[in-house]
């Protein structure tokens, strides 16, 4: 009996979702916007990234995209990037949203978009909410954010980015 309990606890510990302080989950996903391009976690192992999981059917996700674009532009020279992973069933919907976003912004969004049809990322992180974001520095999770960024909490992630870039 004791052995069973210990092995259950061990398996829970082994398969628990990554937390702040843990290594980010490796991924290799097709780009949502660029043909024949693959977005890989290993490309960001020496960078600071804001990793975001979003869907075109999620209003909150779409609302925070202009803010991500601002972040991407502001810290482009600082080895920082916003990586947004889309989890739509059909990538076309998400692509048309990105097209509209670019039109609205008047330029190409400074966000790296990847497409995760199998929803492997939210599954790996056991997402309790969509959208969710992680600040990942050199492959290690340093902060997690649940729900969309609004005017009242945008300063929080800006402060975290600036602290990580120091």
């Amino acid at each position: 009996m004791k052995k069973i309990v210990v092995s259950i606890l061990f398996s829970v510990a082994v398969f628990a979702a990554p937390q702040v302080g843990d290594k980010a989950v490796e991924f290799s996903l097709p780009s949502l916007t660029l043909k024949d391009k693959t977005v890989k976690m290993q490309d960001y192992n020496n960078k600071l990234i804001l990793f975001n999981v979003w869907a075109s059917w999620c209003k909150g996700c779409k609302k925070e995209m202009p803010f991500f674009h601002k972040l991407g532009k502001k810290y482009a020279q600082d080895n920082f990037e916003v990586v947004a992973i889309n989890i739509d069933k059909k990538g076309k919907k998400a692509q048309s949203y990105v097209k509209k976003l670019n039109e609205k912004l008047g330029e190409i969004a400074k966000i790296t978009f990847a497409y995760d049809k199998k929803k492997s990322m939210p599954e790996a992180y056991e997402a309790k909410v969509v959208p969710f974001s992680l600040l990942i520095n050199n492959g290690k999770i340093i902060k997690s954010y649940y729900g969309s960024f609004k005017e009242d909490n945008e300063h929080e992630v800006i402060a975290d980015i600036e602290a990580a870039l120091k």
Partner: protein
Amino acid sequence: MKIALIMIALLILSGCTHVAPYEKEELATQKMLAAPMTTRAAFDSHVFPIREGSFGAESGFSGGCGCK
């Protein structure tokens, strides 16, 4: 009898499933709204009090003809 009840219970219970937030694409569509057509919803809320005689139940009401 007991087995039959257990089987029925299992069948019913197997119909329940946990839907993760990232799997709610279908639930987020327009057709899943309680009132999927906004124009129709306005019409319904206009006609309902007249048909049911429940005037004032939803909002202001100004006549019995349904014409407002």
